[in-house]
């Protein structure tokens, strides 16, 4: 149980001794504070770089009009359009980045850079869109709603990852559970003809798969990454097999009752905001509710305290009488319910039902959101929103025939994740025991 990463930490401490030892907020021991200082300098440098980049774009976009439209009452109803000089947007973004760089430099480790990135990202995407559209009108109602809808599976999947990893089980199997949830949800909804049967069946099946995963990892102490790989490969195999063998030839099993958007009374009548925020798929509102609920549960309840204890110091938790094994099984059960539910959204929200590999890596983006959000449900949901926005921007741009290689945008979540995991722009710390089997003795 001794810390395997020690040599690495030592190597890290060695590499940064050359950094200037100046004032910083004293957090942790010397090496730790040093490292945070370096990370904050890197961040300040990155923000400064972005400031320069956006200054360059500002210079290049004189005279371009950004034309946007909103649906006022409902999608496809009357619209209102407006135009802003793109330069103005970019001046704002440049100022924002400049302020971030300066604040980051001055305030060091205590600057809340995550929040700052969260605040500036929407403006950045917006300004980028305006620049790339180059005068074509883009409908932002569609853009924002699709952002929010892309967020649903990733956000709930991330929540599943957080619950299991907080309990000490490294869960790379979210992708597999999304696939299972999508298929079972579609089949259940098609057979029963009841709309709500889909998400319920998806969630239950996700929980079963998750328990199998936990059984391998806890009972047989199978390496949790191998167990996760088993689930992911198995899910791809089983669902594709079942699709080709049953769902495709007998398509009556793959005609789910779609879960249609709901209009929230009164709120959905608000002009402009109504169609964006208050006439979405019920999944979205459930997702927001779940995120708030689990934030409360993890940080404010006894269950949450025990969950975190099991993930950080299972031996200590065991010593004070917490049944770590049972707790981990329960956490995996919850994670499975969440992931299966998220999966059912994928096949039930669109029109096509289930398709081969329909989750298309969203489970791994959820994993990225977990890390980017530092294992905090709200932050992870924010990360999912940013990733959702890049997906929505890709869709919007390709729909309007703007030729920018979408592969670059689509790679963004993965690149960002690598940068975050590498700790270049700031440290995220996984629950200390995530991935280690627990010996109850």
């Amino acid at each position, binding site marked *: 149980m001794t810390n395997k990463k020690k040599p*690495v930490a030592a*190597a*890290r401490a060695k590499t940064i001794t050359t950094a200037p030892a100046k004032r910083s907020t004293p957090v942790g021991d010397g090496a730790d504070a040093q490292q945070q200082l370096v990370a904050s300098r890197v961040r300040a440098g990155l923000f400064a770089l972005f400031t320069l980049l956006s200054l360059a774009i500002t210079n290049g976009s004189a005279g371009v009009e950004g034309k946007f439209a909103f649906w006022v009452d409902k999608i496809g109803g009357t619209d209102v359009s407006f135009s802003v000089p793109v330069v103005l947007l970019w001046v704002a973004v440049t100022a924002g980045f400049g302020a971030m760089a300066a604040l980051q430099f001055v305030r060091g480790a205590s600057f809340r850079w995550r929040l700052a990135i969260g605040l500036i990202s929407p403006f950045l995407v917006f300004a980028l869109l305006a620049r790339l559209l180059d005068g074509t009108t883009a409908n932002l109602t569609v853009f924002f709603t699709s952002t929010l809808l892309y967020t649903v599976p990733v956000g709930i999947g991330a929540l599943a990852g957080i619950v299991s990893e907080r309990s000490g089980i490294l869960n790379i199997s979210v992708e597999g559970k999304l696939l299972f949830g999508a298929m079972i949800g579609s089949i259940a909804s098609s057979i029963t003809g009841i709309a709500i049967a889909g998400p319920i069946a998806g969630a239950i099946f996700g929980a079963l798969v998750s328990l199998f995963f936990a059984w391998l990892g806890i009972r047989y102490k199978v390496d949790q990454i*191998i167990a996760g790989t088993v689930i992911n490969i198995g899910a791809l195999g089983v669902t594709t*097999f079942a699709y080709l063998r*049953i769902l495709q030839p007998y398509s009556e099993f793959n005609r789910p009752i779609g879960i249609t958007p709901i209009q929230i009374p009164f709120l959905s009548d608000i002009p402009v905001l109504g169609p964006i925020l208050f006439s979405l798929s019920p999944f979205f509102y459930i997702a927001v509710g779940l995120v708030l609920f689990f934030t409360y549960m993890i940080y404010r309840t006894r269950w949450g305290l025990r969950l975190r204890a099991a993930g950080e110091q299972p031996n200590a938790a065991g010593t004070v009488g917490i049944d770590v094994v049972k707790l981990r099984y329960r956490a995996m059960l919850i994670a499975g319910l969440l992931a299966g539910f998220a999966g059912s959204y994928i096949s039930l929200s669109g029109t096509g039902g289930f398709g081969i590999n329909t989750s298309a890596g969203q489970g791994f983006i959820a994993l990225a959101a977990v890390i980017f959000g530092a294992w905090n449900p709200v932050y992870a949901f924010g990360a999912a929103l940013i990733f959702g926005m890049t997906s929505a921007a890709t869709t919007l741009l390709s729909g309007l025939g703007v030729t920018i290689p979408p592969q670059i945008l689509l790679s963004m979540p993965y690149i960002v994740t690598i940068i975050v995991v*590498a*700790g270049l722009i700031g440290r995220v710390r996984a629950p200390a025991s995530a991935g280690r089997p627990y010996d109850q003795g």
Partner: protein
Amino acid sequence: MNGLKKFGSKIRVPALSISVALLVGALFIIFTDIEVLGGLLSDPIGALSLGIGRAATAYSALFRGAFGDPETIGKALASNGDIKLWARALRPIVESVVASVPLIFVGLGVSVAFRTGIFNIGGAGQYTMGAVGGTIAALAFGAGVTPAPIAILLVMIFGVVGGAAWAFIPGYLKARVGASEVITTIMLNFIAGQFVFFLVSNFEFIQKPPRIQPVSKELSQFVDLPGILPIAALRMDISIIIALLTAVAVSWFLFRSTRGFELRAAGLNLAAAKYAGIGAGTSIITAMLISGAISGLGGALVAVGTIKQLSPGIAGSVGFTAIAVALVGGTRPSGVVATALVFGLLQHGGSLMQVQTGIPIEMLLFIQALVIAFIAAPDLTLGILKNPFRRRPRSVAK
């Protein structure tokens, strides 16, 4: 006798795992058959026998696809050296071996990392980037620009560089800042796929004219790997020989060289290895470089020699299967080669099964998942062998 016994105990768990997984696969075939399911209530015996019959047909097609049709082989034997008949008789087994080549390479690459205690699941990405390197080398130096042997050598070198470079990123990050290689390699797999997509849809140098599909030009016009069989109709090229040589080299490296010893020591107990003066960071980076280089070499050879085209999905399920191959083969080069051959047989047999009986080849993914689970949980597998229904005493878990 003793040696035989040792061999037997070594392959007991892998052999049992694969057999049980195939049995479960048969159950899967039976119980996903709508006709069987429909008749299960009214005529259970009839429905079950129908299902079992279908599973048997499917597996016999898989067998014939893997090894060849006994009837055709008999004809070839009787024909007194008719090349055409022989080609037809041998094609399945040759194709099975060809299908195992990428698995040998990536399986070996992944094994080197596993031995060093690094869970490199980026085999797919490194293989893909090797394919990118090989393709670029073929396009740049093939078609008479340089003599064929040199072009082939360059293809291999570019493949090695591509794979090693891609593996260096997670290796460096793991060694220097402790970034989890699991996460970084997963992400890099996706980025590699997107990168290929970007390459084959944006560059005239690479994209196949008329530049509509996101695929590269036909590489057979540029570099052709020489075949090794006397029958020209059978496409087995030198990549299988290079694969076997690589296996020998990896075996020598891991078990006979100082550096390999250090890597294995780091994999077994990093703290102890560090105490003995083995640099943890260097071991990790070295292992990842070697791992990526081998996978990349495989990617280059398969892209240029077998598939003869670069496309975004070139890795297919190789990355997944290679993990199964490495684990089942006990991360030992001999075991990896043997397992890769078994999975190659399953792969090619599975494609005939799909054509003849309509049972999707994706069943193999499911079988691989089961095999990995069985191998990773030897207690579970041996428990099945002893008595599948006996509950183990709870004291083991407590």
